[in-house]
């Protein structure tokens, strides 16, 4: 590590492992699993990059971050410049570096990855975001509060922006953003930077969407999310919590009240259940409820915090995506001695991030593949057993994945004290029910074009409410695109 690697051995540097809490320790706490690269590691990792003439990695990133460019800055130890480079395209690198499914995106396309492990793009992205944060924390101790604030939350220098606070004047055009998840926060931030007055309406008592109620602290510390929320506020966005659009106000009421354009980013917040007997027994949770109780309501700190969550010895989680993995690992941290993750396909088809599958396995989650529950049996109102059937893989279905088919007469029982159903989420109809003129597809998702335009004049939508449950970066991209289109609309009024 002491010697500068010479050019022709560059490829030989193995991918730098990120420091992690060790599995037996981390299942006892809710602290972050990955501890991040050190400066030296980041620089060393950046040296692995081939500085390709035609950097494929950029095409692999949904928001086309200049990956090669920011990595070059890291190499030169210009971390602030690296962050600025990322921020040209992505305002939440601290979040994306942690939760993007890099193996399907930037790192999948990385040319180094053809013969070797790809450059750890996500880890580098997270490193620069965290680096800035640490510096800020240190300087904040020495500067007065006002100055610290004007520097904004995440490295942005407000003074370098097209709209400086001095220019913000009254009489601005009013816009509304609904839902403070990654889509809504991004859209609101962009609109504010363009000089619009923005009100962000959020149903819950806290902003962040899935980033606060779904993804657990051990994967995405909530302080990082609140940093992003503070940054959006510092741009002048007014956040109104506890406002359920469709109940507290309707879309039409917002339009009547002078909001000239509206972005809907309400996410995929409707839990799906299996529809099998026994699903309403005590101890059967939707992943949304389980994770919300633990993350948003801090159930793991009960009774210091008031919201309880059931702790049990044996927990079964049904599903194979990030939501299921998060639930399973949460159950371990709540003290379960046995956690099953029951998935009807095989590991190859699991939609969860590879890294989280690995983490879950290290922590001792017992993955039961090719298995599907068909009934939940109970006693005195409480769940006791899952009746499962074995599956085999048949022909590929619409999603291209091989369809699981039940093996006749292969039912067997698994003892369990808690079951968490994590088989997906749909669009919550609370808003759309009161706005019949916004067209929906057959699953209830809002129909919007690539700019976010819906069937209702002045109303845009993006993120999970349009695409169905997807990813953080896609939601952010949609929010950003929509902000551009809203600006266009507000200037031309053309629909």
């Amino acid at each position, binding site marked *: 590590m002491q010697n500068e690697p010479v050019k022709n051995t560059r490829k030989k540097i193995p991918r730098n492992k990120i420091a992690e809490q060790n599995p037996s320790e981390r299942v006892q706490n809710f602290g972050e699993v990955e501890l991040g690269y050190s400066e030296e590691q980041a620089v060393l990792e950046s040296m692995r990059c081939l500085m390709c003439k035609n950097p494929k990695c950029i095409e692999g990133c949904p928001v086309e971050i200049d990956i090669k460019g920011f990595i070059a800055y890291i190499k030169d130890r210009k971390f602030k410049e690296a962050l600025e480079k990322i921020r040209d395209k992505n305002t939440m690198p601290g979040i994306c570096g942690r939760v993007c499914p890099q193996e399907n995106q930037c790192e999948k396309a990385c040319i180094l990855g053809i013969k070797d492990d790809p450059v750890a793009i996500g880890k580098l992205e997270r490193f620069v975001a965290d680096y800035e944060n640490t510096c800020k924390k240190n300087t904040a101790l020495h500067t007065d509060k006002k100055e610290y604030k004007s520097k904004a939350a995440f490295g942005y220098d407000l003074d370098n922006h097209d709209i400086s606070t001095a220019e913000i004047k009254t009489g601005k055009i009013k816009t509304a953003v609904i839902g403070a998840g990654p889509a809504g926060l991004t859209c609101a931030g962009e609109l504010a930077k363009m000089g619009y007055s923005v009100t962000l309406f959020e*149903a*819950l*008592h806290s902003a962040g969407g899935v980033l606060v109620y779904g993804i657990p602290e051990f994967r995405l510390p909530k302080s990082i999310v609140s940093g992003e929320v503070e940054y959006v506020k510092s741009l002048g966005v007014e956040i109104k*919590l*506890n*406002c*359920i659009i469709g*109940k*507290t*106000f309707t879309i039409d009421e917002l339009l009547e009240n002078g909001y000239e354009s509206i972005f809907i980013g309400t996410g995929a*917040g*409707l*839990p799906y*259940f299996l529809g099998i007997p026994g*699903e*309403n027994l*005590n*101890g059967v*949770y*939707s992943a*949304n*409820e389980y994770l*919300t*109780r633990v993350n948003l*309501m*801090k159930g793991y*700190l*009960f*009774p*210091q*915090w*008031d*919201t*309880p969550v*059931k702790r049990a010895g044996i927990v079964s989680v049904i599903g194979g995506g990030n939501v299921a993995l998060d639930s399973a690992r949460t159950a371990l941290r709540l003290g379960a001695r046995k956690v099953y993750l029951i998935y009807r396909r095989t590991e190859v088809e699991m939609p969860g991030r590879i890294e989280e599958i690995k983490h879950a396995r290290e922590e001792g989650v017992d993955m039961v593949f090719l298995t599907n529950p068909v009934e939940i049996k109970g006693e005195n*109102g409480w769940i006791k057993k899952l009746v499962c059937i074995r599956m085999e893989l048949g022909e590929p279905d619409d999603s291209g994945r091989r369809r699981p088919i039940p093996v006749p007469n292969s039912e067997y029982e698994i003892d369990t004290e808690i079951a968490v159903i994590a088989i997906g989420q749909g669009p*919550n*109809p*609370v808003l759309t029910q009161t706005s019949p003129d916004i067209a929906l597809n057959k699953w209830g998702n809002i129909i919007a074009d690539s700019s976010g335009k819906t069937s209702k004049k002045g109303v845009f939508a993006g993120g999970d409410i349009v695409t169905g449950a997807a990813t953080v970066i896609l939601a952010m991209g949609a929010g950003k695109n929509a902000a551009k289109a809203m600006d266009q609309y507000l200037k031309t009024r053309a629909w």
Partner: protein
Amino acid sequence: MQAENRIIDKSILGSDTVSFTVYCPVIAKKAKAGQFVVIRARNEGERIPLTIADRDPAKGIINITILKIGKTSRLLSSFEPGDIIPDIAGPLGKPSEIENFGTVVIIGGGVGIAPTLPIIKTMKEAGNYVISVIGARNCNGLIFKEAIKTHSDEFYTCTDDGSEGFKGFVSDFLIEYIKQHPDKKIDRVVAIGPVLMMKAVCDVTRPYGLKTIVSLNPIMVDGTGMCGSCRVEVGGKTMFGCVDGPEFDGHLVDFKLLSSRLDIYREEEKTAYNKYMENHKCKMSQ
């Protein structure tokens, strides 16, 4: 200007019930009979649903009436006029179905009396002949008596101990009433109160084919259809109490499941309650 969520007035109704008038102009304007709010009483607090027992859109105020049972309801009951409730979200749930049905019997039991008030008012406004029946353990529990009486065509009280009105449960009263008024055609019954009371009323009305609406109180978190904590079974189908209800056709409700699900956190609630009372006592003795 008044601060939002500020408590304007507090009244203590009997030994375990507290009623607050809260400045909530948006909700006051929007709320309809049968709807509720979700409240958090402190930063570390849980989200609990409470019915909007009354409202005055002109003044921007709503009334919430709370039965002290566990930690959160007790904590909230200790708030005083001038205090601000940290989070109030709403109005949530579907409004009551209000039409001119003809003759309606509206029954409230215990703290369930409070949410009957807006329903009684609007049913009356819609042209119904309103028969109101309220019941409690003893006369101290007969809350909102005057207001309900004013808006009703007939008004009856019941107490378990006979300290006022009919001695016995509201469901027993209903049997008597139906028997004694065979000529009276009842078009609809609305019953709100403890699970056992609602079930008992449904058992009385079922043989007569009297449509009976009940307001269910499953455990909730968000109150917006996001978590499924509030699952209830109605007519064999799973519904979310917060968005599909809280009012349902009582003859189709699986009350056994509802009771069972209300017990999920019994142990945890006890822990929280004991801890709260301990701290409370310490503070008082200081």
